């Protein structure tokens, strides 16, 4: 079982290189914080708050690597109806009218600390996990789409068509609302989200994933050092996804 692999990997790493933080084991397999890696069987805890920092100055217009990787990882493919295709992450182009300076940046669920999508959900399907990841529990979602209207970032989509080609780690189907899960199934295995992995693999280095609660994490250090932005900070939602360079 993959679980056993995980465990033995953890033991091996712990025995061999205890004390070294953030070790890359193989492409895509990064132990983010070994001292605090969550053992299988233990619940996600609020000692962590997962977040992402996106440096839009490194994001090229036309680059779609993150979007492609997300679709592949989560089985979100075009159904041939672009008007209603679910969208977990999209690239948007911003242009400052006066200077003509343009930005191209990925936009997805911002994993708000005060998520409006959770506030409005009549069933409790839209919820925030202890570690800050905002999810839809499809077992309970009735597809009313309230959350889609409440989200200021247009992050959620309704699934209009039946699917039978899901990734076993990412169940999804007709009649429910869905959005970026921060690749929760990967995060739970100490891996980075697929978009972040693809961004580094393409040598763009525009996306950084980590624990906002840990003052020593790379993401916290960067946020402490550089000017970063929360999109629509005026709404005071305390987003988990931050931007640099906009």
């Amino acid at each position: 079982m993959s679980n056993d692999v995980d465990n033995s990997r953890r033991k091996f790493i712990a025995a061999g290189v205890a004390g070294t933080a953030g070790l890359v084991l193989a492409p895509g397999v990064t132990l983010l914080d070994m001292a605090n890696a969550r053992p299988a069987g233990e619940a996600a805890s609020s000692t962590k708050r997962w977040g992402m920092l996106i440096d839009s100055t490194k994001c090229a217009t036309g680059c779609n690597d993150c979007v492609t990787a997300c679709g592949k990882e989560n089985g979100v493919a075009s159904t041939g109806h672009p008007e209603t295709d679910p969208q977990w992450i999209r690239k948007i182009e911003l242009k400052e009218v006066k200077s003509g300076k343009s930005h191209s940046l990925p936009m997805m669920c911002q994993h708000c600390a005060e998520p409006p999508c959770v506030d409005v959900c009549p069933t409790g399907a839209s919820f925030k996990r202890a570690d800050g990841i905002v999810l839809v529990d499809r077992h309970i979602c009735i597809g009313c789409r309230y959350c889609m209207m409440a989200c200021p970032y247009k992050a959620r989509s309704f699934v209009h068509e039946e699917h039978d080609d899901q990734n076993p780690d990412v169940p999804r189907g007709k009649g429910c609302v869905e959005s970026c899960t921060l690749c929760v199934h990967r995060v739970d295995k100490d891996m980075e989200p697929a978009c972040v992995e693809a961004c580094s693999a393409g040598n763009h280095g525009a996306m950084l994933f980590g624990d906002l609660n840990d003052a020593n994490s790379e993401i916290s250090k960067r946020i402490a050092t550089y000017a970063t932005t929360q999109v629509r900070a005026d709404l005071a939602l305390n987003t988990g996804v931050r931007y640099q360079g906009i």
Partner: protein
Amino acid sequence: MINPAKRRSVLGWLAAALSALLLAGVMPATADDEHGAHSGHKLIAKGDKCVRDEDYMRRNHMKILMHQRDETMRKGIRGSQDSLKNCIECHVNPKTNSVASSKEDFCMGCHSYAAVKLDCFECHSSKPKAPAVGMNPIVTPEQKSEGNDKQSSLSGKMRWQMQAKQASLNMGEGVK
């Protein structure tokens, strides 16, 4: 693995239970073997025993799954032996690489007999993560496990051996 003796005794027990029910007039006399919920249901499984007693599972698997569903979804507790993914890994039909694509498959075998609609697979994949090994005649399991599946080569090989053994059991014994 289910060894032949154990298999025979389980089947024997099931047959006895079914005939007892028939005698008591609880079951319609027309219930045929193929669709008899328990007697005809092929126990597709790779391991030698289920996570709980078979009898218990027949009645309570939905409760176990429901409990684990909330643990995983809400708290992020993964890798439990009670996860749906774990059920699928073990009960997948090597012929269809699914647990629910036909009445031959593990879940549908009972659910179609009992006429209980199954919603799980509208969202969940009914296939295991790794395709059932040995399905592709061009790539031998050895090649497969040596090539693109380095990390789990051993488990891949072991799984294939278990499947092959299961297949020969199925052929030798029949399920009548």
